[in-house]
């Protein structure tokens, strides 16, 4: 199935929604493609309707005239001006004049003994489970890692009745607090509220603290935490552990967008190095919702040819940039985190490749060829970023192995017609189970 749009937007988080609303006010034919069941991205997932900003943007999106491809996964760019997307067994070729990439970010995960046990999840990971209906009331939860997400998720889970037994931020206190305050909109009030709720439930805060091992057989039972020289165990049902955010760069990289220091480079109108391809939100720098909304608006207006309006907003974007840099510094990882994995700790969860097998290799390509690391269904999204930190492997060289399909897809979706139902069930892009 072939369709043509003047402006195609990938990703329906805050940046994508803002882009769609801004571009949708023009006469352009606009489409918004997103792999989640509902718009909102990760930050405005199910349950964010009390958030007034989210509410107002969802309302604007609902009154915008555009084609919504919700639940569709963009996985290939077979030629300039065309994206392929899949929904269940259906595939569409989406032709476009201009493209806005608002692909968002994911959590960074670092391996430590036991991190592959069931019920060890990301911070946003556990939050998304709970927003998706996982009962959390009465459960004992340890939240660890780094970044403003830790506090926000702790507060949310505590409100849902979870017992947050420990909240462990790897950064030292002096570096972390100012930025959490900066990020949350009404910092003093909110922090006070969070502190009250969690203190009442017995949460202990630790800074310069992280998990060194998770224990259990078929599922998590306890976690060993470390702060300075002290180690102790906490019994828990869930460990939510994530080390801040990393941009989803697979699609921008596949399209050939110039990437520098791990982020897509854009000009003040959100134009990338590739003609008619724009990028907005976390892929250009981790900076939170407000910045993503701003960049989405700029990209939407610029793509629709409303340069004056875009340029006016672009001046506000400059101010957001300093915050991006500051947040990056605040969440810089302690190098001791490189020593958590033992030789037996798995780094690649898809192919079960251990730290010991990987550290013999000189680079990502070498490791990949000899061990199958990064060749499973996640295509190195989890282990590649861990390897970058653990072994100092160059992120550009890790990205150079990105090729289509950037998400596993059915063989029939790749344009091979006449494939039987049974054959087309085996997925391409990697070797699955």
């Amino acid at each position, binding site marked *: 199935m072939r369709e043509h749009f003047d402006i195609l937007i990938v990703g329906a988080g805050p940046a994508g929604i803002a882009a769609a609303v801004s571009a949708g006010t023009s006469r352009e034919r606009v489409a918004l493609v997103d792999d989640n069941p509902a718009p909102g991205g990760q930050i405005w997932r199910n349950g964010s309707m009390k958030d007034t900003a989210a509410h107002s943007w969802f309302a604007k999106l609902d009154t915008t005239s555009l084609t919504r491809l919700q639940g569709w996964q963009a996985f290939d760019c077979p030629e300039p001006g065309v994206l392929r997307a899949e929904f269940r067994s259906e595939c569409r070729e989406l032709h476009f004049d201009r493209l806005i990439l608002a692909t968002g970010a*994911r959590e960074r995960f670092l391996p430590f003994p036991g991190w592959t*046990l069931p019920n060890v999840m*990301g911070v946003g*990971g556990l939050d998304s489970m709970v927003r998706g*209906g*996982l009962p959390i009331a009465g459960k004992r939860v340890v939240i660890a890692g780094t970044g403003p997400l830790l506090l926000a998720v702790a507060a949310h889970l505590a409100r849902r009745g979870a017992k947050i037994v420990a909240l462990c931020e790897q950064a030292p206190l002096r570096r972390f607090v100012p930025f959490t305050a900066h990020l949350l909109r009404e910092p003093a009030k909110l922090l006070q509220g969070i502190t009250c709720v969690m203190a009442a439930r017995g949460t202990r805060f630790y800074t310069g603290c992280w998990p060194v091992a998770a224990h259990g057989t078929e599922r998590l039972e306890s976690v060993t935490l470390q702060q300075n020289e002290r180690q102790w165990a906490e019994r828990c049902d869930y460990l939510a552990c994530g080390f801040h955010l990393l941009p989803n760069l697979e699609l921008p990289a596949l399209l050939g967008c110039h990437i520098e220091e791990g982020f897509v480079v854009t000009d003040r109108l959100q134009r990338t190095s590739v003609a008619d391809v724009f990028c907005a939100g976390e892929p250009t720098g981790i900076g939170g919702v407000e910045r993503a909304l701003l960049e989405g608006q700029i990209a939407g207006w610029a793509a629709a040819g409303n340069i004056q309006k875009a340029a006016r907003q672009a001046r506000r974007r400059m101010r957001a940039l300093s915050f991006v840099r500051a947040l990056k510094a605040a969440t810089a990882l302690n190098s001791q985190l490189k020593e958590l994995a033992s030789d037996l700790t798995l780094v690649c*969860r898809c192919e079960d490749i251990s730290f010991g097998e990987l550290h013999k290799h000189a680079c990502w390509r070498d490791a990949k060829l000899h061990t199958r690391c990064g060749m499973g269904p996640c295509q190195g999204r989890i282990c590649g970023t861990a390897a970058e930190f653990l072994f100092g492997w160059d992120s550009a060289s890790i990205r150079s192995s990105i090729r289509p399909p950037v998400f596993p897809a059915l063989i029939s979706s790749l344009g091979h017609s006449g494939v039987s139902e049974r054959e087309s069930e085996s997925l391409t892009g990697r070797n699955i189970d």
Partner: protein
Amino acid sequence: MPEPAHSINLKVNGVSLTVAPGTTVVAAILMTRAHTRRSVTGEPRGPLCGMGICFECRARIDGRAHQRSCEILCAEGMEVHTQ
């Protein structure tokens, strides 16, 4: 959160479950057990990212193999099979 207007019935590995509208398939699986699959060396694995990145939550949903269960909502009569 408002009270759900109705509930959804589905089966996970043959076990009948009733969940609220808006429940993801992965959350429904986790209501029955902690793991979603066995790894290539046989380890139990549960979901990690919750956002369609890690593929640890993949399951057969209504006959379609390798679906990311964190990105799909439960529907009436749905049949889910994990490894």
